[in-house]
């Protein structure tokens, strides 16, 4: 049956199989990875071997002379095309190819083009560069005061008002200092019953999408078409147009399916380089990074978080002071946004009258850091939930009870002053405790195996304000196509959005066509990031569908069909046009209300349109002879509003939790003077099947996001929040060892156990 209209089945809240799943299980789904164009050249990069240095010379002659090489370009060649070839979403600090100096090991300094990728790779190895090395800085706290300065002057992009004051600043590595001040923390600390202070660290890790970053540019006559594995086609279009001094309509950006993104493929990455190379060579150019090169392209911020809390005798937190240092690496990318947008949630989901936050984005000579599944939130929850457990322990109160006493409730002001609405914080905590049987006795293990359990809860404000647009085309046969620039990178947005169209228009979701991002065709969308699409694009899609419905109603009235009668859509068209002809175009765009935080205090009465809440409950076993930790049970509990597609929501939760499990237990970019020494999947381990906890449950609580499309809100990041601190808290519960730096390796557990026993480990 090829039924288009829905008879009775609800379209929203139904486990619709992914629209593209047939293509994906038969190997026919389109990825940029698979695209080749006639006459296409392959690009390979030559990269810096020093962390910070002035470029003395780049000798490309041998590479240029290798048979089969079409061209070799350096930063100077790019300058013949673009006078100021620097790009970036927050700062224009990233050169297309290095100019004058290099800022990290792995920075691209030259590109080779050849019809055979192996020839291009061989030639790239023949390029010889000489540098005068400069002192480098790698640590985020040292970068605050270091004499090594990564960028001589700061060049904010101008897009963000709160960065403008940094324009032209020199002699600093601070790319943004964000403050929040609420109440009187000094007085509260002075009057406090108990004061606790801790410092936590996270390590640099990488997204490792299985499809490494890839972009292709095809030159035309004063125009370009870019095929790219990007999470933000609209931004690529705007930024390429700006670089070339063109109108946006001279750049066309097309995005097929992505083989994973997780924030790696955001804003602009390889697109500027392939665009410039294609314009210089007058041939299509494809750049496919290897897995190794991804480690030199974008990563997750390492961080240091100093947190101090005052607690009164009733177990209420009365003051909290947060100081966070974000290691942004050599280019700001979106780091300054992470610093601010996540910074204001750093006191945690707690109702605290006196709060002060200082959050710093720092340049260092490491590979750049950007957004990775959580936009900084997992680093924060790691620290504040480890700290919160220590507070409960410190005053001898049960960890769940202590949290319940302090959590924010409906209608209470968050640290910014924004009142909490539709955030099921207490419900998520209670559900987690219930699933863990928290009040029942717990089996603590015997002999060398010791067992522990713990929970952690975090929240996130979606990045605001951002805009999404959508178009719904209703054809004369009653079928619908959705045009939008949300990128389906695996999260299932095509399916979820089709469900919204179907629900609104009374169609069958499986029969709605979703047209993939193409900036010539699909309307603007800020980006597919930060769990924003379900809510923002979902609202735009619903508005576009309602707009189509309204026109359909008008058409029915016009042709004399009485209100409320159950005519097929095609009959209405037939009556109007006398044949199967015409169409209805519904348009919708959505930008939520927002109040900018006040400068200095960071206060705002409307800082976000919605909150995400996620908790993790962990039961684990520690082998006290080896330090090895086995996760016996991981419970992920989330508030996602009303799920549009419960089965897809469950995979988003399990996938996010597993990813965070890797960041918690073993993933770590090893750096030696800025050189990543484990830049390959063989040396940098990501979670495999054997790392899956023995039991993993993914559960949502019942909630309705009132301003969300059909009650829904974002879900992609929620299950990352609680995993790291819940595991660290459970390790302390099991063996009394408190770890304050990620990853929580067997070695660090074992060292902790031995230290407790007064036995020092060698080395």
């Amino acid at each position, binding site marked *: 049956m090829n039924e288009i209209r829905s008879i009775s089945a609800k379209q929203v809240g139904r486990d619709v*199989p*992914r629209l593209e*799943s*047939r*293509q*994906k*299980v*038969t*190997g*026919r*789904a389109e*990825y940029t*990875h*698979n695209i*080749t164009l006639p006459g296409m050249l392959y690009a390979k990069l030559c990269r810096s071997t020093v962390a910070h240095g002035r470029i003395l010379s780049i000798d490309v002659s041998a590479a240029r002379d290798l*048979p*089969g090489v079409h061209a070799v370009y350096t930063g100077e060649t790019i300058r013949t095309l673009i006078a100021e070839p620097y790009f970036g979403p927050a700062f224009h600090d990233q050169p297309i190819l290095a100019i004058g100096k290099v800022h990290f090991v792995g920075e691209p300094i030259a590109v080779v083009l*050849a*019809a055979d990728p*192996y*020839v291009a790779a061989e030639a790239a190895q023949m390029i010889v560069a000489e540098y005068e090395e400069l002192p480098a800085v790698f640590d985020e706290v040292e970068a605050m005061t270091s004499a090594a300065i990564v960028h001589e002057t700061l060049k904010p992009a101008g897009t963000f008002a709160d960065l403008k004051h940094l324009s032209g600043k020199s002699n600093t590595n601070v790319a943004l200092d964000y403050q929040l001040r609420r109440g009187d923390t000094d007085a509260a600390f002075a009057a406090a019953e108990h004061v606790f202070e801790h410092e936590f660290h996270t390590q640099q890790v990488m*997204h*490792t*999408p*299985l*499809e*490494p970053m890839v972009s292709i540019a095809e030159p035309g006559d004063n125009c370009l078409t870019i095929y790219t594995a990007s999470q933000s086609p609209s931004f690529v279009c705007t930024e390429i147009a700006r670089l070339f001094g063109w109108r946006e309509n001279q750049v066309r950006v097309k995005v097929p*399916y*992505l*083989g*994973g*993104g*997780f924030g790696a493929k955001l804003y602009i990455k390889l697109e500027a380089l392939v665009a410039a190379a294609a314009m210089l060579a007058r041939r299509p150019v494809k750049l496919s990074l*290897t*897995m190794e090169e991804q480690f030199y392209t974008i990563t997750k911020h390492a961080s240091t978080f100093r947190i101090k809390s005052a607690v009164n005798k009733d177990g209420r937190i009365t003051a909290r002071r947060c100081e966070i240092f974000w290691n942004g690496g050599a280019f700001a990318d979106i780091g300054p946004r992470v610093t601010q947008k996540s910074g204001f949630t750093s006191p945690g989901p707690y109702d605290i009258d006196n709060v002060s936050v200082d959050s710093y984005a720092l340049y260092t000579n490491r590979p750049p850091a950007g957004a990775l599944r959580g936009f900084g939130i997992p680093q924060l929850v790691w620290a504040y939930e480890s700290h919160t457990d220590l507070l409960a322990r410190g005053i001898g109160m049960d960890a769940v009870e202590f949290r319940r006493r302090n959590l924010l409730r409906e209608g209470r002001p968050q640290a910014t002053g924004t009142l909490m609405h539709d955030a099921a914080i207490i419900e998520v905590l209670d559900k987690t405790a219930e699933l863990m049987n928290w009040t029942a006795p717990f089996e603590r293990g015997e002999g060398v195996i010791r067992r522990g359990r713990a929970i952690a809860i975090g929240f996130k404000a979606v990045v605001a304000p951002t805009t999404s647009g959508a178009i719904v085309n209703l054809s004369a046969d009653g079928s619908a196509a959705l045009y939008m620039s949300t990128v389906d*990178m*695996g*999260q*299932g947005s095509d399916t979820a959005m089709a469900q919204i169209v179907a629900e609104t228009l009374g169609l069958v979701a499986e029969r709605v066509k979703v047209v993939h991002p193409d900036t010539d065709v699909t309307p603007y969308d800020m980006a597919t990031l930060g769990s924003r699409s379900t809510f923002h694009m979902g609202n735009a899609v619903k508005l576009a569908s309602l707009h189509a419905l309204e026109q359909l109603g008008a058409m029915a009235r016009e042709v004399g069909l009485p209100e409320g009668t159950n005519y097929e859509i095609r009959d209405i068209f037939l009556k109007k046009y006398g044949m199967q002809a015409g169409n209805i175009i519904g348009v919708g765009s959505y930008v939520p209300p927002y109040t900018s935080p006040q400068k200095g205090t960071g206060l705002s009465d409307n800082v976000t349109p919605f909150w995400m809440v996620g908790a993790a409950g962990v039961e684990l076993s520690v082998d006290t002879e080896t330090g090895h930790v086995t996760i016996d049970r991981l419970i992920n509990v989330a508030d996602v509003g009303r799920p549009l597609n419960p*089965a*897809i929501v*469950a*995979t988003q*939760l*399990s*996938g*996010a*939790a*597993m*990813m965070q499990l890797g960041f918690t237990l073993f993933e770590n970019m090893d750096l030696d003077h800025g050189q990543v020494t484990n830049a*390959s*999947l*063989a040396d940098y381990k*990501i979670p*495999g*099947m*054997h790392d*899956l906890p023995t039991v*993993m449950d*993914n559960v949502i609580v019942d909630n309705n996001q009132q301003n969300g499309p059909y009650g829904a809100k974002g879900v992609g990041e929620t299950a990352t929040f609680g995993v790291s601190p819940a595991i660290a808290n459970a390790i302390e519960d099991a063996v009394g060892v408190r770890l304050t730096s990620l990853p929580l390796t067997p070695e660090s557990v074992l060292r902790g156990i031995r230290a407790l026993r007064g036995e020092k480990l060698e080395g």
Partner: protein
Amino acid sequence: MSWGESRTITLTVNGTSYTREVEVRFHLADVLRHELGLTGTHLGCEHGVCGACTVLINGRSARSCLMLAVQADGAEITTIEGIADIDGPHAGGLHPLQEAFREFHGLQCGFCTPGMLTTLIELLRDNPAPTEEEVRIAISGNLCRCTGYQGIVDAALATAKNLREATAPA
């Protein structure tokens, strides 16, 4: 341009025989993807770790990024594009494992999916009644960054059960 030696090889891929002159340095994945246009076989790590490039060579799973095309001369190869037709009764439709991946959401971005499917098809052929542990072991060499693996295990176990029930005497 060509670097040195080429050789003529014959591969039977998804039931069709192809004879091609290939450079000896070409990986099997290169030939499948670029010479034969079978882009369903994906390349993730290109050094044998992620399993995205897994294909069946004479019925055994192998990493096409690690094998030279000339080593496969004369072999029967099944790629993701050929899976739907492997078992006679399903010819034309999807393989039950493919259906189960859809139903149990054993995929998200789909980049690892070709390797997961080829690996699990080998498992189910050799062991029609695998335990959950055996499924986990079979795909422990295939990485998925998206799903958290649960849907993949569920899909494999459900397929095994369905296939057993379908072949069990009534």
